[in-house]
């Protein structure tokens, strides 16, 4: 449904002729649905004006960042936040950075490294917005989720500008909870920008100490970038264990000792994907690593602040791994591969090679909680993948799952993928069925309650949270112009 000419003109007067388009030619670039228009606001004031116009004309809108995922109803106003791409501030003293939605993590991280700082890079990859809420490779030290969001600037579904936490009472971004209005329960209900109704236009992210180099010494050409040398006081290793219990023992021990910069419970398939440059190499490497590992395992990076600190961390790491019967993967001790995966995990945040390259699409079930518990669920979900692998519907990764420690193992994340071809509808249907069944099993067996699980059962079991959330959304969005949706990264 096209916008009426006069309505189109109203939007155009806000963003300018160049930054609005309703031509059908541009729509497939974004999604399979046709939108009423795509609009590119350049700043918060323009976002606010667009939102107010949407309310005036009862037009549904949704924002989008780099565009990696999302579900969009037809005929909406799609707000592409691409022009909002500025780093507003890097506050070294108070350890936060303020960014607009289209600053990607790679840009911010590169700026931070120069200052001896880093931040939580989300698993979606450094090609995605730095504002993204979520988890990633360095959660062991940088934590994840809403822990890292400080103050946020939010244009509500009705077009009001709300500044949360410290920003609400001053011009400071240091805290999301005050002095000033803490609206964390609303703002962090899902992934900004986009899932909480309205539009997140700026956010402060928490910064952490970075013991590594100001710039990685990259050599070679794409797709095989290597490190000319492993940075001083850094090391990457993959350890496999005789059993899940032993792996968990080591994870707990390493968390308590606080020696790992990263602890990522990769499986062999994910290690193979990250260190290889094409699918054929990947498959061969996976088969090789599968023979080399003794059981489940994890990948670690240690980063010392000094040679002595590094030596200490290395010694503790090796002792804990040895006590749990862990075995280092020899293939990854090759400095070239060690450097590649170190860079993949820190600078790239892995992602695309391990998710999209093999088949072109993947579905995932991510869960938060105690690792020992969630791993038990994941083992079952992995077993349920095997028939799909045998039928050739999904990529053979051995039925593996993965996960990692958060905040030195106080929390943990476990996740499981099914990778398949987007051109194969049978595979897609089978994966969606697997996803539904495993989410249901997780709930029924009381492992966790997923937003992708049976909401009519999960809601009542969790204080009818979904009804309360619906009431909150209705209050915030009386005109129903800002629907919830999937994560926008």
């Amino acid at each position: 449904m096209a916008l009426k000419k006069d309505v189109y003109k109203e939007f155009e007067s806000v963003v300018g002729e160049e930054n609005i388009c309703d031509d059908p030619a541009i729509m497939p670039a974004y999604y399979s649905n046709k939108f009423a228009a795509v609009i590119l606001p350049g700043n918060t004031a323009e976002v606010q004006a667009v939102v107010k116009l949407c309310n005036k004309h009862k037009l549904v809108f949704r924002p989008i960042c780099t565009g990696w995922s999302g579900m969009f109803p037809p005929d909406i106003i799609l707000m592409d936040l691409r022009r909002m791409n500025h780093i507003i501030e890097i506050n070294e003293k108070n350890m936060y950075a303020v960014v607009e939605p289209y600053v990607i993590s790679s840009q911010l991280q590169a700026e931070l490294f120069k200052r001896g700082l880093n931040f939580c890079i989300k698993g979606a990859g450094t090609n995605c917005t730095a504002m993204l809420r979520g988890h990633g490779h360095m959660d062991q030290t940088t934590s994840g989720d809403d822990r890292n969001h400080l103050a946020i600037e939010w244009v509500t579904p009705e077009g009001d500008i709300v500044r949360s936490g410290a920003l609400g009472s001053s011009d400071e971004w240091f805290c999301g909870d005050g002095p000033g209005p803490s609206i964390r329960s609303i703002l962090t209900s899902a992934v900004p920008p986009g899932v909480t109704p309205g539009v997140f236009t700026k956010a402060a992210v928490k910064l952490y100490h970075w013991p590594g180099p100001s710039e990685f010494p990259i050599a070679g050409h794409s797709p095989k970038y290597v490190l000319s040398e492993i940075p001083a006081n850094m090391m990457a290793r993959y350890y496999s264990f005789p059993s899940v219990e032993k792996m968990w023992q080591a994870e707990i021990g390493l968390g308590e000792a606080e020696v790992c910069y990263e602890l990522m419970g990769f499986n062999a398939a994910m290690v193979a994907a990250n260190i290889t440059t094409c699918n054929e190499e990947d498959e061969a490497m996976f088969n090789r690593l599968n023979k080399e590992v003794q059981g489940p395992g994890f990948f670690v990076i240690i980063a010392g602040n000094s040679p002595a600190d590094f030596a200490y961390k290395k010694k503790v790491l090796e002792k804990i791994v040895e006590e749990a019967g862990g075995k280092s993967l020899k293939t990854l001790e090759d400095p070239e591969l060690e450097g590649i995966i170190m860079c993949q995990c820190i600078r790239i945040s892995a992602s695309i090679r391990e998710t999209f390259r093999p088949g072109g699409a993947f579905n995932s079930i991510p869960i938060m909680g105690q690792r020992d518990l969630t791993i038990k669920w994941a083992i079952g979900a992995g077993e349920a993948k095997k028939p799909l692998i045998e039928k050739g519907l999904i990529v053979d990764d051995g039925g593996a799952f993965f996960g990692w420690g958060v905040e030195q193992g106080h929390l943990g994340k476990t996740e499981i993928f099914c990778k398949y071809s987007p051109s194969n509808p049978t595979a897609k249907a089978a994966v969606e069925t697997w996803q539904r069944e495993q989410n249901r099993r997780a709930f029924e067996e009381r492992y966790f309650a997923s937003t992708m699980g049976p909401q009519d059962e999960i809601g009542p079991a969790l204080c009818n949270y979904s009804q309360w959330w619906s009431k909150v959304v209705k209050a915030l969005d009386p005109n129903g112009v800002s629907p919830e949706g999937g994560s926008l990264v």
Partner: protein
Amino acid sequence: MGLEQYKGDMEMCCRCSACKFIPMQKVKGHQYAYVCPSISRYNFHAYSAGGRLNIGAAMLKDGMKYTDKLLDIVYNCQLCGACGVSCNYAMDMEVLEPINEFRIKCVEDKKTHPALDKIIANLKKQGSMIPGAKGKRGAWAAGLKIKDATKEKVDVLYHVGCLTSYDKNLQKLAKATAKILQKAGVNFGIAGDAEMCCGGRAYQMGYPKEFLNQAKKNMAMIKKAGVKTVVTSCADGYQAFKVLYDRFDLKGELKVLHISEYIDKLIRDGKLKPRRKVEMAATYHDPCRLGRLGEPWVHWEGKKIPGDRFVFDPPKPYRRGANGVYEPPRDVLKAIPGLKFTEMTRIKEYSWCCGAGGGVIESNPEFAKWTARERIEEAVSTGAEALVTACPWCEKIFNEAIKESGSSLKVYDIVELVEKAI
């Protein structure tokens, strides 16, 4: 087959946006992280490679009406290939080829761009890409005592290219090249007035038949002259002879070198000695078709293996930009005494385009100049006084952009600096 052959590749695009940026490891900060001029200038996702592939997939699936906007998207792309390098860091899929095929489809469907039509009409009529060019193609060589390769036996044919031959401001590059080759004692010649357009830019514009016509004529002339080696001083010409002629099985055993490669070899062989100081701080711009798109063509035929993975039998060798010509021009510049060499952020396989490619300099000169200005700003940020390139099209657009912006940056072709140094 056309666009259809890339259906699987286009459906592989997951809209991750990697195609918009230089490879993530190479991002050095907030600035100079973008690599695609089209999305950087026009902002709608449709102008990115990912957007183009999704549009291509939609065209195949549902058919799409040609609108002015669609053609604006199609023709506002330099086909510089940077998107493919960034995508292919992680993904196994063709990126530039389907984008190019979409443009070819537009031309086949008679949805052409008037400015490009004019260029192609001139190509058919006069055999050059320079409408309105006056005088004879080989006139620049008058009095330089250069052999006529169509009449005399030579070891090397210097293919000058349309722009260098006809543009009064750029003929100095041909003269410098000739002087360098003479100084090194190379038995070379030119085809003079008989030289014809390589056709490479016609291919970029979406006119494969016209390209092939030129390619066949050139190869017939080369065969007749008995030439075994062609040296070009234009990156478009280099890519045409080296990559496209090979792709269409026309190149045979012909050895193709860019002048920067040849000078590098002459220096290493001791036949050329840059002795005079050229005191300047300079940075080098990698022309797209000498760098990432100058990577040799890899002949491959195979089929997708049915099943879950996007793999082929035999395995498909993707051209990911790793084997372009990157070091020879740098080695030449580093061999010039007094020249202080600096690097920009976006270099080699992830270099930012000059803006002139893909017919954009003709179809949308303002966008071409905008793209050039971005590069000029990056060059200036290194502290360089001069931006050195190895393609006359780059030099032309950089100079036009500098003229408008008032920047004090100087632009040179690599042969101009070598000429000063010998």
